[in-house]
């Protein structure tokens, strides 16, 4: 398998096509635009469809329509654009349609800037749209994972009839790294719920409305059961030098790359640190965190994010006071340096 030096944003599109995605609907926004540009070039080549929508709202509703037809479909945007898509995402989750959404996060709130941030954690992992829904959320930390996790997102979306999000940031989208692409997926799950404009599927209905509170409650309970199954089966995470770690550093996405570098340098100084990196943000690696928290050797958790501490809340909920939690975040499009992370770890060590 040969390597290609490629941008994360371009890797997403190739991964999507290799995963059998055939329709792309999107709206340009920095730093996600290469995804639309690459899709515009490659989707038609493989017999797929690309359409630049009139708006983010238009795009996500086109995704809703195409997903109802049973095809693999995607859209991509960046933070302010994702905010606009929230209405459609809630409908898609409510109607239980599979689709893949890529969010190349940038600085916020508001127009913010186009530098990388992780401030969308809450709107993607905790909702953003209305209602009791969950998205499957995958957080790549390399161009390779932009392709791999996009492919996985399509698989999980179909498996659970649920929208799946690849949550990346401006750096992961913009940087080039060597990527190995697998062979295309050629077998797909049967979607007997889809509307195929045939007699057999005529009775299928794609909707999110139910006026009867009892029935809507039942539907919601069914969704919660599904989310519980996802939590049971689909947790993915990376453990790095955790075996004898006394301090557990946690980060997702690009920050995990920096934290990993910091772990190496701290280890070289004889400090027992390791990294636990959630790859899936929903489902969140609750059990794994609890297992580490239960170890008497583990002193505390230290969370690094490019936001105001959004994943931090989830870690605190999981730990429920069982171990102390420290946090160091950067915002506005600033990225931690490895040196900064090391300094913060040393500082907290001294204070404890």
């Amino acid at each position, binding site marked *: 398998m040969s390597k290609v030096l490629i941008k994360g944003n371009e890797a997403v599109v190739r991964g999507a096509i290799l995963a059998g995605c055939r329709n792309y609907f999107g709206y340009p926004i920095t730093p996600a635009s290469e995804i639309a540009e690459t899709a515009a070039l490659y989707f038609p080549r493989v017999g797929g469809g690309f359409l630049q929508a009139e708006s983010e709202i238009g795009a996500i509703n086109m995704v809703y329509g*195409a997903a*109802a037809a049973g095809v693999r479909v995607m859209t991509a945007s960046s933070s302010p654009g994702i905010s606009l898509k929230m209405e*459609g995402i809630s409908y898609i989750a409510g109607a239980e349609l599979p689709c893949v959404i890529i969010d190349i996060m940038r600085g916020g709130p508001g127009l913010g800037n186009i530098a990388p941030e992780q401030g969308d954690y809450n709107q993607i992992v905790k909702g953003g749209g209305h209602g009791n829904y969950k998205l499957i959320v995958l957080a790549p930390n390399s161009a390779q994972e932009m392709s791999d996790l996009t492919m996985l997102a399509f698989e999980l979306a179909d498996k659970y009839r649920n929208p799946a999000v690849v949550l990346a940031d401006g750096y992961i989208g913009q940087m080039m790294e*060597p990527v190995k692409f697998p062979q295309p997926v050629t077998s797909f799950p049967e979607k007997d719920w889809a509307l195929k404009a045939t007699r057999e599927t005529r009775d299928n*209905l794609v909707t999110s409305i139910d006026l009867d509170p009892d029935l809507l409650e039942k539907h919601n309970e069914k969704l919660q059961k599904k989310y519980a199954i996802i939590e049971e089966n689909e947790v993915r995470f990376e453990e790095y030098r955790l075996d004898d770690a006394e301090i557990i550093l946690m980060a997702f996405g690009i920050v995990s790359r*920096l934290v990993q570098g910091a772990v190496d340098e701290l280890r070289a100084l004889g400090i027992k640190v390791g990294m636990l990196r959630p790859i899936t943000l929903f489902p969140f690696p609750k059990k794994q965190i609890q297992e580490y928290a239960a170890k008497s050797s583990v002193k505390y958790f230290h969370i690094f994010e490019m936001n105001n501490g959004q994943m931090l809340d989830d870690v605190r909920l999981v730990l429920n006071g069982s171990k102390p939690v420290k946090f160091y975040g950067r915002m506005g499009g600033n990225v931690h340096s490895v040196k900064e992370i090391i300094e913060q770890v040393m500082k907290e060590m001294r204070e404890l």
Partner: protein
Amino acid sequence: MSVSSKILQKSESFYNAYERKQGGDPISTHYCPGCGHGIVHKLIAEALDDFGVQDKGILISPVGCSVFAYYYFDVGNIQAAHGRAPAVGTGYSRANPDSIVICYQGDGDLAAIGANEIIQAANRGEKMTVIFVNNAIYGMTGGQMAPTTLIAQRTTTTPLGRNAENEGYPLRMSEIISTLEAPVYVARTKISDTKSINATRKAIRKAIKAQVDGRGFSFVEILSACPTGWKMSPRESEVWIEEIMAKYFNPGIYKDTIDTRQPKIQQKLIVDPKDYHELLDISTASLSSLEGVLPVPPVQEMIEEIKIAGFGGQGVLSLGYVMANIAMGHNYEVSWLPSYGPEMRGGTANCSVKVSHKRIGAPVVAHPTTLIALNKPSMAKFENEITSNGIIIYDNSLIDTAPQRKDVQVYAVPATELADKIGSTKSANMVMLGAYAALRGYLDTAYIEWAIPQIIKKKKLQELNIQAFKTGMEHIKELLKKCVN
């Protein structure tokens, strides 16, 4: 079947019993007495029957009283968010062009919250038929003002009557849509008596037939009664349509180019998955596909952080891209990160390249070990960021003041001048590549010469680029000789 028996019989495209409607009465609809939706439903169902497209039919119901159109239509049903039916229809129709898509919308849905979606779908000429029921009021939410509410008309949110000063004027959607190039059929009809229902029947059939024949986007606006919202009897409502509504919203055919439009032929491109890697430029873009053809030196332990900066157009980003590719070909871990966004359009560009024997952390280079500066502002910006003992390579044909730092190695390479002599200013970046390779020494010269044309595929520049690369190398060798002497 005669018209009269058709009118009396239930259409095939309706369910026999409306099981989806909760509440125990599967025979009647949820619409109020005198409401126009039932009639419009009937006309659509009948047309779907007659054109034999019930199985292919996809009905997209809006938010509004007709949100429950799927109770009745025995076709594929999708319920859409408020105003988004044309976008949902677009998605469906693109994913499955072999379908008949009917977007059913009310006035708030289509002309207020969904005004953009309808205009854009119409303008793209999406393969769909939009049925727009205009009753000048929000029915489902309880009688609020619609974008088509008439001047002086009282609603719950215009208790004193719609006032143009405050609320503007009622929107004439058929007129607006008929100005667009793509739609093939745009008509406004009313349902206030038998004659007008017949005209509506004709318009709906024509619109759906246009889609069946593959002609494109068709649109029928229907002036329709909402006796409940209007607080009138059904009979008074009919009179109001005739005497008030139809005076502002003139019925008529606003556009009909069905016969002049060639049917769109949907040719489906079938591609063998085996060809994907080639079609996606994966197999062809890969340097390591020729792995082993040329031997490369063993990987050294190092972390090289390179910043390349200059004007846009000097090949700053592509120099970084070539370097990263070549280092990848030498089995190093690499990353390449451009400055992106508005920064790029300000005339300066820079990129960060990292090369290492081990996995790279952050792709951004804050403190370069090597700076390649191609213009003065870049030198000013990055000179102080370089690590001690780092290297500065700068284009002294464009930068007239040498860097001040004493703790770094500085090499002046008149890259632009040398490239000009070869015959292309554009190759200045490859002169710099030669200088870099000569100074750092971990990249194989023969490999680079082989790789340059694999990476920069412009035929015209291939020879020049290799020559430029050699020139850059020679220049450094000469400089180093002088130093030794």
